[in-house]
């Protein structure tokens, strides 16, 4: 397998290590906004890197963080990416998006802005996000974005305690004309590890029940598309063969951290073994084509996945769900994804999807 078989279609730019919220589940564990130690990557180097990545097949760039709008020159960066005809997606907590920023986002023809909301009620959201008043700001951002007719998504991080908020949040998304509502169960990485230690995460039986409930009851009720993020092997037959599913294209992605570190994705912030260099000193093209970590990943994913992931008939499509999470949990990029592993151990993984 040559590197040309793997175009680098997406770059995830983690524009700031800092965040103004204190979410208990954050998988990249950002620092405080007043952190003066952050050395953000130089914009000129960043834009040069993006231009080089276009030669490798780059089509889309996701701006994320930390909170990406803490980066002062984000507007300049968006204008550059727009000029390069790249699809731009943004993930933000929304607290820094005002009317003017929404207009800039519109001007740059951003494909989608994802805003985090963990509840329809301010009290629930503010508690999980660690800042009073942030719900109001995030909802305001959605209003500003709607006014500019920008495609929006709400991302909910799911704990046990906010499961009762799902339906109300779906209704709020509908009211705000949000295009899609994505529900992400909290993962045991970064700060999420403590969520699991405190057993505040939703267990696998419940996750499967919620998935089926949403599939059965929500589709006809809301205009907003609703995605419950769970590996395809655990999805219903209808979901597998019907609507598009969220799947990580790990073999076509690179992450660039706030300081220019090149990694698989944001996981490099906590799992430094997955870092491969820095755009200030290393050639991105050389890394993409020849770095041993990427070669190993290409060789092993999915053919040498272990455990239930290696025995699943969907492994060529799913690619083992989140490889970054698998590594964070076990230190092994080929290890099974925790949800599927747990489902298999509890006899909840569909036998019809296992071979060998």
């Amino acid at each position, binding site marked *: 397998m040559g590197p040309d078989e793997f175009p680098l279609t997406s770059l995830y730019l983690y524009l700031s290590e800092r965040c103004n919220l204190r979410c208990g589940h954050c998988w990249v564990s950002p620092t405080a906004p007043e952190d003066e130690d952050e050395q953000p990557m130089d914009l000129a180097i960043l834009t040069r890197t993006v231009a080089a990545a276009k030669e490798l097949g780059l089509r889309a760039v996701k701006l994320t963080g930390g909170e990406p709008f803490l980066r002062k020159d984000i507007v300049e960066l968006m204008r550059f990416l727009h000029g390069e005809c790249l699809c731009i997606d943004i993930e933000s907590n929304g607290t820094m998006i005002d009317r003017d920023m929404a207009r800039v986002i519109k001007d740059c023809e951003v494909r989608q802005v994802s805003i985090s909301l963990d509840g329809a009620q301010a009290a629930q959201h503010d508690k999980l996000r660690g800042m009073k008043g942030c719900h109001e700001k995030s909802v305001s951002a959605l209003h500003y974005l709607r006014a500019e007719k920008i495609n929006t998504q709400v991302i909910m991080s799911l704990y046990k305690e906010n499961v009762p908020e799902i339906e109300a949040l779906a209704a709020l998304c509908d009211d705000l004309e949000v295009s899609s509502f994505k529900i992400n169960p909290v993962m045991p990485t970064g700060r999420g590890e403590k969520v699991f230690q405190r057993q505040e995460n939703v267990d696998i039986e419940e996750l499967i029940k919620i998935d089926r409930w949403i599939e059965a009851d929500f589709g006809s009720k809301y205009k907003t598309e609703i995605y419950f993020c769970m590996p395809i092997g655990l999805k219903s*037959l*209808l979901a*597998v*063969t019907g609507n598009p599913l969220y799947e990580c294209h790990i073999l076509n992605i690179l992450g660039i951290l706030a300081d220019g570190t090149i990694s698989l994705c944001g996981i490099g912030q906590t799992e430094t073994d997955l870092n491969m260099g820095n755009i200030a000193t290393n050639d991105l093209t050389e890394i993409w084509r020849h770095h041993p970590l990427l070669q190993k990943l290409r060789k092993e994913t*999915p053919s040498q996945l272990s455990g239930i992931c290696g025995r699943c*008939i*969907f*492994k*060529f*499509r799913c690619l083992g769900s989140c490889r970054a999470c698998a590594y964070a949990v076990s230190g092994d990029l080929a290890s099974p994804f925790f949800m599927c592993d747990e489902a298999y151990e509890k006899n909840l993984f*569909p036998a*019809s*999807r296992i*071979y060998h």
Partner: protein
Amino acid sequence: MSDGAKIIAREDCLKQNPEMVFRKEEDGAFLFDPHTGNLKYLNANGVNLYELCDGRKTVGDIITLLMELYPDVAVEKIAADTGLFFEGLAAMQFMTKSEKNGS
């Protein structure tokens, strides 16, 4: 893969490729090729057709059976749809041709 030319004739007998993984679920089934990762979903009708391929019946025999089952559907449509379905499965190696004795 097929280059578009027909590889299945009406007089061919088809059998299921034993190296492929066939997994039934409530309203359909998956065919999975562990060597290539190819995955195909079959709906209930597809499952019936797949299971009729015992290495003894010809494609023509199967079309005749379907004509009896669906008398209101035009013969040409049944023949065309069935042919297309088997062409697709054969192109992905989920089906192979066999001798009339089923081998």
